[in-house]
C-alpha cells in the first residue's frame, strides 16, 4: 500500500482559524490519553532506576505489582479508557521473560487483570512482539495509536490502543498503554469537528476514517485514496504528525 502524505507547506495554506482551533483541540484529545500514559511510564522508570541502579537489586514481578495503583488511578481519571497497563520488553524482569500487566475496569469499579498466555511455546500464545503498538516502541522508540480495531483479547470492544514507550538511558523497558473505547472517546473527537462549517474527516495513514462530521464518512471505513489538496479537498493537515492522524477538510462543493 502506498501512503501519499500531504506536503506540509501546501496543506497549511488554506488553514482558517476555525480549522487551526479544531486541530489544536484534536491534539489535546490525544494528549488527554498520552499525558497520563507518560506519567505511568515515569513511575515505571523511577521504580526501575530505584531498584536496579540505586539499590542494585534484581527487578522482579513484585516491583511491577507495586505500580498497579497508578494504573487504577489512570483507569478512574479518564472514562474513555477501557483498560490500561504496562507491557515489558523481554528480560527486563529478573524472574520472568515477558510481562503484560494490564487491567480492565468493570462498570461497578472493580479492576480485573487481563490474563493472557505469554509462553511462546504455547499455541495460544499472545505474542505482543508482533503487535504494531509494541513494535513502534521496540523498533523506533516512538508513541503509537493503533486502530480502530476490535480488541479480541479484551472482551471484543471497539478500541484504539495507545502506547507510550518507556526508555531509560537507552534501555527500552517497555510501553505504558491503554485501550480507549471509541464509543466514549468520540465525545472528545466529534465536537471539535462539528465546529467546522465544512464537511471534514480525521483519517490515519492507513486511509482509515477515525471520525468525521458527516455521515458520508463513517468511522472504520477506508477512503479510496489518501486526501490531497485539490478538487475534492481544500485542506489536509497533520493532527499529530508522529501518529499519522490527519484532518482533511472537503471543498464546499465536494459531492
Amino acid at each position, binding site marked *: 500500500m502506498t501512503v501519499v502524505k500531504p506536503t506540509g507547506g501546501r496543506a497549511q495554506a488554506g488553514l482558517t482559524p476555525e480549522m487551526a482551533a479544531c486541530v489544536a483541540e484534536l491534539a489535546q484529545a490525544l494528549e488527554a490519553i498520552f499525558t497520563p500514559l507518560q506519567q505511568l511510564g515515569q513511575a515505571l522508570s523511577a521504580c526501575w532506576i530505584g531498584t536496579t541502579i540505586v539499590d542494585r537489586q534484581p527487578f522482579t514481578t513484585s516491583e511491577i505489582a507495586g505500580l498497579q495503583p497508578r494504573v487504577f488511578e489512570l483507569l478512574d481519571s479518564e472514562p474513555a479508557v477501557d483498560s490500561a497497563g504496562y507491557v515489558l520488553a523481554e528480560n527486563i524482569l529478573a524472574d520472568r521473560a515477558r510481562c503484560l500487566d494490564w487491567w480492565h475496569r468493570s462498570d461497578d469499579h472493580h479492576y480485573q487483570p487481563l490474563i493472557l498466555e505469554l509462553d511462546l511455546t504455547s499455541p495460544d500464545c499472545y505474542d505482543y512482539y508482533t503487535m504494531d503498538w509494541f513494535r513502534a516502541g521496540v523498533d523506533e522508540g516512538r508513541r503509537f495509536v493503533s486502530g480502530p480495531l476490535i480488541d479480541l483479547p479484551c472482551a471484543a470492544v*471497539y478500541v484504539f490502543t495507545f502506547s507510550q514507550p518507556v526508555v531509560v538511558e537507552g534501555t527500552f523497558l517497555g510501553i505504558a498503554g491503554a485501550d480507549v473505547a*471509541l464509543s466514549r472517546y*468520540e*465525545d472528545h473527537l*466529534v465536537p471539535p469537528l*462539528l*465546529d467546522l462549517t465544512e464537511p471534514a474527516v480525521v483519517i490515519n495513514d492507513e486511509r482509515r476514517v477515525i471520525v468525521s462530521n458527516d*455521515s458520508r464518512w*463513517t*468511522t472504520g471505513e477506508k477512503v479510496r485514496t489518501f486526501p490531497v489538496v485539490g478538487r475534492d479537498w481544500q485542506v489536509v493537515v497533520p493532527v499529530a504528525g508522529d501518529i499519522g492522524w490527519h484532518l482533511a477538510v472537503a471543498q464546499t462543493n465536494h459531492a
Partner: protein
Amino acid sequence: MNVEPDGRINGGNVPSRAIRVPPLVVSPGGGGLAQSVARQIADAIHLGLMAPGEQLPSEGVLAGHLGVSTMTLREALVALRQEGLIETRRGRNGGSFVRPFGSLSVPRVRDQLRALSATELRDIGDERLAVQGTAAQLAARRASAANVEHLRDLSTELVQADSLGDKARTHNRFWIEVSLASQSERLTYASMRLQSSVGEMLWLPGVMPIDQKALSEELVSLAQAIAIEADAAARRLAESLLDRTTRWLIDAHLNLTRRRR
C-alpha cells in the same frame, strides 16, 4: 380475541395467545434477571408484536417460555405495570393485558439517539445490513402468500399512520414481517432486537429527509420484489434503504451533538 378497527385480528398474521416474546437474552451489565425479562416483554410490546388489549399468556406458560421462575416473572410484571405497559384485571376473565399504546416520547427517544455514538450507529447499521438484507433476500425465496399480503398491507398502512408511535410501530412490523417471511428464527430475533434499538429514532422530527409517502413507496417496491421472488432485487432494495437510514441517523446524532457557541 382482539379485533382491530380494520377488521384484522391481533395484527392478522399470528394466532391469538401465541408467545411472541423472544427467548431471554440477559444483557451484560444490565441489572437483574427480572429487569431483563421486563425489557424483553416491553420490547415485544413496543415493536407491536403484542397488540393493545391483548392478554399475556398465563404466568406459568410465559415463565416456562422465558426459562425463569414464576417469582422472577411476577417481579418483571410489577415493573411493566409501573411503566404503564400492562394492566392486570382480577376475576374470572382476569389476567395481564397490554395497555393501549401511548405516543412516542420525543425527548426520551432524542436522548437515546444522543447517547449512542456515531460509531455505534454505524455498527447497528452494519448488523441491519447483514440481518435484514439477508432476510429480504431469503424472504423473496421463501415468503408465503400470507407474508406477502402482510408486507403489502404494512407498506401501504404506513401512509395512513398518524402519530409518530403508529408510524414507528408499522415500520417496525414491516421489517419483522420480512424476517418472518425468511423462515429464519434467528434472523427474526435479531431483527426484533435491531428494530427495538433504533426503530423509534428514525421517526424523530427532522431525521428523515424523505416523507412517509416516499418511504412507503420504497417498502411497496421491496414487498413487490419479495412477491415476485426477485431475491437479488429484494436484497438490493433493502440494502439501499438500510444504508441511507443509517446515514440519516448518524447525521441526526451529529446535529444533536453540535456545541452551541
